[in-house]
């Protein structure tokens, strides 16, 4: 009777550090999914790897673990970056000194987005849930909705527009 010892995260972190092709793969993902440039991507990847080294965990898939951590780091970066841009543009328009962001507007925006999510159609929320939480592709997630392909796009577009409006 032998235990199935799962692979360790830190060993994979070391492998990513040593393997340029692994790093490139993640950087390409940061660029296509989040529009993050190479220099920022390198920094975010470094932050991710430092975090992996802090966790001596055994996981189902170290590759998946590092990827999920990197994806979250990128998402947080995009959200705080956009907030930063707003702070800069408000300050330059008013000619006032740069205010320090305390995060309160981000909280409001999250709240608005949460409320908007509660208000969209059940079908669309199920699609987003399948895509963002259950890890299905958009195509798979849209299948249960697919009365007609055109009808699906129309519903989803309307819903995404409503959500996007919360961020502006």
């Amino acid at each position: 009777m032998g235990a199935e010892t799962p692979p360790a995260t830190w060993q994979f972190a070391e492998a990513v550090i040593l393997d340029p092709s692994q790093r490139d793969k993640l950087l390409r993902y940061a660029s296509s999914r989040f529009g993050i440039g190479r220099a920022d991507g390198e920094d975010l990847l470094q932050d991710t790897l430092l975090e992996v080294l802090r966790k001596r965990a055994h996981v189902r898939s170290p590759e998946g673990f590092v990827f999920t951590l990197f994806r979250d780091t990128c998402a947080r970066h995009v959200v705080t970056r956009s907030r930063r841009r707003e702070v800069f543009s408000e300050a330059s328009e008013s000619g006032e000194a740069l205010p320090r962001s305390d995060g309160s507007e981000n909280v409001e925006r999250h709240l608005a987005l949460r409320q908007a999510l509660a208000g969209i159609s059940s079908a669309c929320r199920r699609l987003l849930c399948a895509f963002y939480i259950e890890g299905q592709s958009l195509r798979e997630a849209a299948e249960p909705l697919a009365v007609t392909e055109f009808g699906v796009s129309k519903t989803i577009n309307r819903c995404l527009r409503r959500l996007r409006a919360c961020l502006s």
Partner: protein
Amino acid sequence: MLELKSHLDEFTLLRYIADELDEAERGEAGRHLEMCSACSERLDQVHQLDAELQILARDRDNFAEKHASALPKEDPFCKRPENDAWRKRERGSSQLIEAAVTASRQGAEKKARVLEAVVGSREMHALLGSLSFSEPADRYALLYALQEAGQRIAENPVQMRRFGEEVLERWRRDGSEAAERDRGAERMVPKLTLLGHAHQLAGQACTWMGEYEMAQTHFQLAYSSFGRADDETSLAFVELLEAQRRFFIGRGEEALELARRAAATFEVYGLDEACAKARGSQGMALLRLGRADEALECCYAALEVFENRELWSNYVGIVNNIAVCLVNLGRLDDARREYARALRHLSRSEHRSFLAFIRHGLAEVLFAAERYREAARSVLRARLLYINCGLRANALGAWLFEIESWARAGDLAKARESLSAFLSHLSGERSLDSAVVRRVEEALSGLDPDFRNIAELRQHAETILPPSSRGLSA
């Protein structure tokens, strides 16, 4: 095929960034984006929306149809803390990451010495005093030791608590200065991470020792630290521990919500063991709430992982919970089968203490089904195993249980024989209050034993047993 003349819609842009367009569509979309500033601007917004939704997706409830939280708004655990403050990002360098790998390896080696000193207690103060917060390898060693101490909490909760508190104290004394001075060490193992783990360990130990209010304070501080450090998996671990704490103070709904939230995060990150522990905690909470069917499902999910990974301590706890669920559902025979299966899995030479817990659990099930004679036999075997393993408190509790079971089975001769052995065992140790001994003797003195009196004594004995015997997993 995309219609190039019109603008790209939101769904297409989302499919574009999710890399779900086919090659031809992607090429056309790319060309359109190069020419069309409106779509390019919209692409930026969809990137941002996508990032926001990914962050919201960490809590499944944000995507739920309706959600009434069991946690009140003012509860610090109501929502996972988010670090929204802008943080200046330092440019990375290849030297930093290479240095981190080296320091991490050295830290992993030093960790063993730290833990040895922690468990050995006397040398802990001196060893911790010799570590420097300016030294990255020392920070890694402390961090890894704090993490592993949490997994080994059952070995010595008192010492583990001292370890967590001593790290906090040392940081108060000279950590802040080191954080300012040694940026490299601070980037590798930030203060927030280190302090978060120290509070987490201290809180975990307090829960084991039944100091629930102090545990709450530590968990809140750990939660806040990990929130500021953007550390999702550590936040989930604190939620799991807080769920266990709330379970023990009788707040089952809240425990359930926290355990469920933690399990969702562990699932996303592929942390199977942690996920199984969270599922086990969900099961315990559901059982407390009288939802045995759902509890059973959670417990079976956890059981599989514990069995495959040979995490026997967790395995035993979950088998006991499964049995209680089955009994609640009127499936006594299934409960017995689960115990029989567990007994087959465990080795008689290597897992004697776990066998004892299983036999004790089986006795509880039989007792609940009023099969007192079988219960007495099972707990007798558990008691012998406890003694064999040096688990004295558990053995004494089992002994009282055995006496009560014999008495309830109507076999007063066996009950008295067992009591006599119990008393002679204790007289050597002089460890039991004479009033307690007198109560047991009185309860069995007449023709009709006083079951209530024996049961009270047994329950009293159970309250002083360590949490490991009550289903708390590390």
